[in-house]
């Protein structure tokens, strides 16, 4: 178990190094940061000076080594755009994205799982209606859903805010939406926008897995023993779908964070996705690099948590000692 975690962490380190290397070697091509840093009257000479000062003239391996070295020392550098320390900048945006992600994940699970179970068990109008509705859900681009929601609920009906986080409360460095009404209201539209796609995936996955599990011998045997249907479906069947479902949900979290770029852009949600888009616009290499490494870290952590969840759910994995 411990050796498994250590092995995972080592592998994760490799993943993160790879991501940071890729990230780093790619960003040089995104554009010229200097042009974004200075006004139009700055001379070429001065621009060159800045370039030199930032070390942008060094060979790529040198820059990468410096970047990794600094990361290892816990120095994340400074944003080219705002000159703020990158860690501070990202940390200030992290809560917004995580809260949005959590809400949309919550929406996708709270609706997706029951709907998935229902559609797996029952055929009929409601089941088909659910399947078709959610199909529409994955067929509409996120940004169209977002704009549509803004237009309907923000502008036409005026019920919900059209952008931003609303009032937030500061808990230490964590800025939260969850403690104010306006914060909650601000979460609804982006939460739905981001959650719809995941909801559909969750529902369909739960449905497929349930159908699969329902065909197994142990469910047939449990049926033959007259276990009541509620326990049969929830205790016996659904529990057995959890391993694949958790795997996919883990992967989805990555998707949520990625798609939050679009959602955050549409809703002007001040999270990491918006920060990343701004960073691309301004060729803010330090922010982009750290963002991607952080995404990789989150992904790796999710993977690890998913693996550990297997231990909790599946006794076979628990006893095998988790060699993959």
């Amino acid at each position: 178990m411990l050796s498994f975690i250590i092995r995972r962490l080592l592998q994760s380190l490799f993943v993160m190094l790879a991501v940071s290397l890729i990230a780093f070697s790619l960003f040089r091509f995104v554009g010229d940061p200097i042009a974004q840093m200075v006004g139009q009257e700055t001379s070429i000479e001065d621009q060159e000076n800045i370039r030199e000062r930032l070390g942008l003239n060094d060979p790529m391996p040198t820059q990468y080594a410096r970047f990794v070295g600094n990361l290892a020392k816990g120095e994340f550098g400074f944003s080219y755009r705002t000159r703020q320390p990158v860690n501070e900048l990202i940390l200030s945006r992290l809560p917004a994205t995580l809260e949005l992600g959590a809400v949309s994940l919550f929406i996708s699970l709270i609706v997706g799982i029951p709907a998935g179970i229902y559609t797996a068990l029952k055929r009929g109008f409601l089941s088909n209606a659910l399947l078709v509705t959610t199909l529409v859900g994955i067929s509409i681009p996120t940004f169209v859903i977002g704009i549509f929601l803004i237009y309907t609920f923000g502008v036409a009906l005026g019920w919900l805010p059209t952008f931003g986080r609303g009032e937030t409360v500061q808990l230490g460095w964590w800025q939260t939406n969850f403690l104010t009404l306006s914060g909650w209201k601000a979460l609804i539209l982006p939460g739905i926008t981001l959650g719809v796609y995941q909801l559909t995936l969750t529902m369909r996955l739960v449905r497929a897995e349930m159908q699969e599990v329902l065909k197994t011998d142990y469910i047939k045997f449990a049926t033959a023993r007259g276990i009541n249907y509620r326990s049969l479906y929830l205790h016996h069947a659904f529990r057995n779908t959890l391993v694949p479902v958790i795997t996919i949900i883990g992967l989805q979290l990555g998707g949520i964070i990625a798609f939050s770029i679009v959602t955050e852009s549409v809703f002007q949600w001040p999270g990491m996705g918006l920060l990343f888009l701004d960073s691309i616009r301004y060729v803010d290499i330090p922010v982009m690099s750290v963002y991607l490494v952080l995404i990789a870290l989150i992904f790796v952590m999710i993977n690890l948590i998913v693996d550990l969840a297997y231990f909790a759910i599946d006794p076979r994995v628990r006893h095998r000692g988790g060699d993959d």
Partner: protein
Amino acid sequence: MIESLRRWSIENELVYLFLRSPGALLAALVALLCVGGAVLSPWIAANDPYDIASLDILDSLIPPSWSDGGDARFLIGTDDQGRDLLAAILYGTRLSLLVGFLAITFASVLGVTVGLMAGYFGGRFDAIVMRIADVQLSLPAILTALLIDGIARGVLPQGQHDNLMIMVLTVAIGLSLWVNFARTVRATTFVERNKEYVQSCEIMGMHPFRIMFVHILPNTMGPILVILTVDLAVAVLLEATLSFLGVGVPANQPSLGTLIRIGTEYMFSGEWWIVIFPSAMLILMVISINLLGDFLRDALNPRIR
């Protein structure tokens, strides 16, 4: 004709199920219309929206022909450049589908090859490939595409850039989708490689690649087919999203996504047709592809991870 179809449907379960699924039939019809319209767009569109010489800025923003100020020449109106919107949508669909098809081709070739090899060889190779897949997964689709696009803009010679943009998009979208194929094919290959027909090939001394591509590959086709369909929808959406974020296809060759992006700028200005029609087209197309994917998934019932 009907009789032969009936007989065919009895011999082939897929055809049998297909003919009995109204949803799938309808979806296939819509998809066929979309693809047909897209492929034939040069012949059925009233004008060529890529031919900038034929555009007249004075024709821009004309509403659909049935509304006030409409123009009979432009059935569903024109966009901000004076393009016939219908023609632009047809061409845009063509481009979106082209990118989609190329991307899933790229993704499937890469993913299937990698998945077959990982599943067949297992061990170190498998571990390394799956870690790379992890890296890929931790750079979610949009990020990958944004990055690739960024690089391409940086490294490709200007002028070549536009021509290659479609290739770049293909690679970007393809790269973000190959993992699906790789994982599924790998899982299927794990199962297949322990089957005795594979062992019999091994005993004969057949080359591993021949075993993989000639013998195992056809047996993984069911799941691959489903992923192909689903990912085609994903690829088309992804292209639209990328175009929405402004990193998609070049401006003078608008895809559906670009058309929608342009259209959203007219959301509050009353020129609703610029956003409604391309969106409707995109949604209709993606829904029908997804419906087909659904049908295939249920019919072939492969385990998809």
